[in-house]
């Protein structure tokens, strides 16, 4: 378990694990910081499977499929699918903030 203290540390771990070791990174997240959750707040784990823009964005495979489970789209929509999420704190949302505000604040590397 690894607790990143800033966005650069998170990016570094994602880059090393996905590029060098060819494995995904499991992250504990507060979903309200992820744009594709439409503000819905819950505890959750996500899989980061890559990065782009030299590590300023991470690629997330969101496994939560609201329609499959509920047969219905909740008001927050459906976060399922592949998404690109900014890492840094300069934007509207951020992967680092999602991890930093999660219950464990950690990721599995």
């Amino acid at each position, binding site marked *: 378990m690894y607790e990143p203290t800033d966005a650069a540390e998170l990016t570094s771990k994602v880059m090393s694990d996905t590029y060098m070791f060819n494995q995904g990174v499991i992250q504990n997240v507060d979903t309200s910081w992820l744009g594709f959750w439409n503000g819905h707040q819950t505890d959750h784990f996500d899989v980061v499977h890559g990065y782009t823009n030299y590590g300023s964005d991470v690629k997330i495979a969101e496994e939560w499929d609201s329609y499959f489970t509920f047969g219905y789209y909740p008001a927050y929509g459906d976060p399922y699918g592949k998404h690109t999420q900014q890492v840094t704190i300069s934007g*509207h949302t951020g992967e680092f903030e999602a991890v930093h505000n999660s219950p464990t604040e950690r990721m599995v590397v």
Partner: protein
Amino acid sequence: MARLGGRLGAGLAALALAGSAGCSSAASIAGHHPPASTGSTPTRAGPPRSTEPAGPGTATPSSPGAGRAAAPVLGAVRSRTEAVTDVAWLTMTGRWVGFAANARHHPERLPRSIYDLDLATGRLSRLWTTEYPHGFVQWASAGDGWLVWTDQSVLQHAMTQPVQWAVWAADLATDRVVRVAVSRPAGSPVTPGPVVGDGRVVWDDYLGLRVRAADVWVYNLRTGARRLLMHRIAGGGQKAIVAHQLVYALSPSAYLRKPEDWVMARPLDGGLARKVSRDSAAIDLSAADGAVGWQEPITGDPKRLMADSLRPGSTPYRLVGPSLGHLELADGFATYLDRQDRYRLVAVEPDARSSLLPESARSVAVSGHRVAWFSIPQQGWRTHSSFSVATVTTR
């Protein structure tokens, strides 16, 4: 329901005001003229975060394109500091701004109170606080001078965990708060996303994992009467009220996997529903000024943002190409997130040009001819947030 929170307006006068282009006092925000009241749709944003200082008072035009509608122009940005933290669900109707937040930083960062800011007087009020010991506001939306929100009993640690919920509404002119609906005793894993307009609140009541559908209810704010509008609706819990119609998503057939959700419009006073969208699965509804917008496809990025005028015989058109969604419609313009996760303004016309909002905002709301957003400073985010508002002009 009596007001549960105290007035914060008097304390605001002593707050430091962060001015950018334009004026820089509480009175300056109070000087805004309210636009005609229109339906507003909820923003989807969580607690605030650090952003850059407020930028210049004009938006930055995007790439040129012949024959396309001009990008909306942002007027002077008026900013000030508010003594609230963990801001979420920013929404706006007429001269009022509503949002969920805390008076002081909470370790769980769950917004527990509802606030309203009167742009005409500059007064900020804490209107209501969750009635659950570990509750928080999971959803808020505004329209026609009313604010509606969902109080959730506890944060879900698993998505199928049932929780208690209650839907509340507040008349922002009088601060009268009414409880519109409560969950069944067993709770539900899906909480409603209520909308308000035309003097009515509409919300969905999910019927459970065995039924896999929801009843849609309507509450008359004048009479207090509650009636079932639609029974066992499959599809989406997202809705909007515009032009005396309820716009909602409907799944015409049931599969284990993704349905082809249609955007439907149904008169609130009775009458047949009609299909608005055409061929693609649609989600994330927003409506205002007689128009409705949605995003396609349902899952994954990027999204294609579509709109329709809701007039008989109208045809949906593409509003914006690749984007990250978060479409919010107002009078003649809309906001959305571009592929770089930045908020942009665009005219509600086919493939119109867009312009950037002057800073990265954590949450954005639109109503009438105004846009408002919250951000928090790099320092001091545990004690205050930065609120900005500006008028938008379309050409």
